[in-house]
């Protein structure tokens, strides 16, 4: 479990270093994610320790967004100052993006047994 957690942090760190050196516009943790997928494809799986630590973190992924989310309260005036227009744009754009994405995915998806 502890080794798994250490491995996840090391992957993040390698990701941060790669992001810093190559200046590709992707954050370190996302590069770490890609590295872990690449490792699993190469070795045909993931060590159980990483699996355990990762599942523990993912079980309460929502919790980890709470501190950043509280920033909404701190900067909420700005959101309200630009008026309801901003909120309308956010709702419409998010809804349209999800609808179009789901339709395109379904249209191009291979059916079961195909």
């Amino acid at each position, binding site marked *: 479990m502890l080794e798994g957690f250490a491995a996840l*942090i090391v*992957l*993040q760190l390698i990701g941060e270093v790669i992001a810093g050196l190559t200046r590709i*516009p*992707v*954050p370190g*943790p*996302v590069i*770490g*994610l*890609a590295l*872990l*997928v690449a490792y*699993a*494809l190469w070795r045909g*799986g*993931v060590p159980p320790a*990483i*699996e355990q*630590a990762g*599942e523990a*973190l*993912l079980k*309460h*992924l*929502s*919790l*980890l*967004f*709470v*501190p*950043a*989310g*509280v*920033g*909404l*309260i*701190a*900067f*909420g005036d700005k*959101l309200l100052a*630009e008026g309801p*227009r*901003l*909120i309308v*744009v*956010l*709702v419409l*754009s*998010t809804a349209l*993006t*999800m609808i179009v*994405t*789901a*339709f395109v*995915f*379904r*249209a191009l*998806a*291979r059916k079961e047994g195909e």
Partner: protein
Amino acid sequence: MRKISDPSQFWIYLAEQPLFFLVLTVLAYIIGDRISKATGRNPLANPVLIAILIIGAVLIATKTPHARYFEGARFVHVLLGPATVALALPIIRHRALIRRQWRAILGAIVIGAGVGIATASGLAILTGLSPETIASLAPKSVTAAIAMGISEQVGGTPPLTAVLVISTGILGAVLITPLMNLIGVTDYAARGFAAGLAAHGIGTARALQVNEKAGAHAALAMGLNGLVTALMAPLLLALLLR
């Protein structure tokens, strides 16, 4: 330990402890999660949203500055890094399925990313928002770290972008289930992919809560969209703002 006589002093003592805000964060989330469970994971009872409202109420009532709150809450915040790396796990588990659907994934990522940027900036232009706000809105569907970088590059305000990103994530997590039911998309791969693409990590957290397969596709969409939006946002904005 110094002696505490009256309640206001007690509060001052508590508010000096970073640990208090860490405890508040975890407790508020536990309450949010309990309410979410009690409502059968009703999308409106989003645990992140409930926790933010509870903590916000405490911070406003006690006039606590955000920086003071974050001193304690950052211990939770730093775990986002390794948790994002761990999002590889559902992708790995569903790799056979994902490999089979590469055409749908490629098509949906390119079109979905384009629609996300174009509708955000297009609607912002139509409603007459300032150019700075338009640029801050364009990358709203991708994870905060990427979105803030893009925002800076296209002339937006990174802190405003962070607020818009979080709002988008919560909106997406709340809207995904009712919207998909409305338009009749029942496949969890398509539903999850839409949630992760449009609403990054918060949408992915919601997808994981509902269904493993949806979570895997959401995690994949989130990672890919970060890359695609970083490439597409400057180009699309230049076209729209011409």
